[in-house]
């Protein structure tokens, strides 16, 4: 049977995949996608705990409200981040993170 641990492990693996992508990839758009994946993995943990930790026989809706806020913030973050990427592309003609090294001493 499927227990809470199953959901937590799937969530941890998804988060780890996203983390590996952020560290290893150099295409800034793919780094953004991996960030989204990590946020979604955190959402899965929240929803799993909301279902398994009942309040008066119902799922804990405070956790799901937090997930709602996370999704909203992630959407706003993507919009702003992609605008930054477009601005970056205009000045560097590249989406490689190593093209931006002005602060690198």
């Amino acid at each position, binding site marked *: *049977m*499927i*227990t*809470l*641990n*199953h*959901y*937590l*492990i*799937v*969530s*941890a*693996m*998804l*988060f*780890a*995949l*996203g*983390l590996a*992508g952020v*560290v*290893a*990839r*150099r*295409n800034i*758009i*793919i780094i*953004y*996608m991996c960030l*989204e*994946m990590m946020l*979604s993995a955190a*959402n*899965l943990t929240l*929803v799993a705990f*909301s*279902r398994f930790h*009942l309040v*008066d*026989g*119902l*799922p804990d*809706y405070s956790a*799901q*409200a937090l997930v*709602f*806020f996370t*999704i*909203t*913030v992630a*959407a*706003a973050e*993507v*919009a*702003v981040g*992609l*605008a930054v*990427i*477009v601005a970056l592309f205009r000045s560097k003609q590249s989406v*490689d993170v190593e093209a931006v090294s002005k602060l690198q001493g």
Partner: protein
Amino acid sequence: MPSLLFYFFAFLTLGFGLLVVTAHNPVTSALSLAASFVGLAALFISLDAYFIGTIQILVYAGAVMVLFLFIIMLLDIKAESGKKLNLAAVVGGIVLAAVLAVQVATVSTSLSLGGKTLNEVPLTLQKAGTEMAAGKLNLPTISNDLKAGTLPDTKLMGLTLFSKYGFHLQVIGLLLLVGTVGVVVLSKREKEATR
């Protein structure tokens, strides 16, 4: 939810997630991420979070992924080919991810709630419905649904958001407004540049 379906959607989520990280073509990555999010939405629905599952598909697999694809095609980003991989970063990423996964697995197995299955923590809808009908804050639309044995997920979500987290919701609305203004300012070409 039958175990088989859980494993199917978990593999869908993780498999396409792996493809996001390993694919060379950004378009492949974006489409895999959309597929991964659909699998994740199915997992949300298996946890009785119908509203969250729906907005996961609408907002992530719909809006956010279209935005990503739009930018990839607008900038006309080609697949990175022939570039040698930064070996230190790849190894570092894999090691970091493995350490994190082991850590979470260790913590979750020592969790008292961890071994419970969904059937061991059943929703007591009728009882919650009668309690709500007798309580101070009684919304018949919710308590009648509960008494009938269905989970009015979206109604309960709305009740939580607009009663308990009303202020937070307005702050989030403000954040979206600031984000919109920020995007417009960022995308606007500066006057000196056009002259």
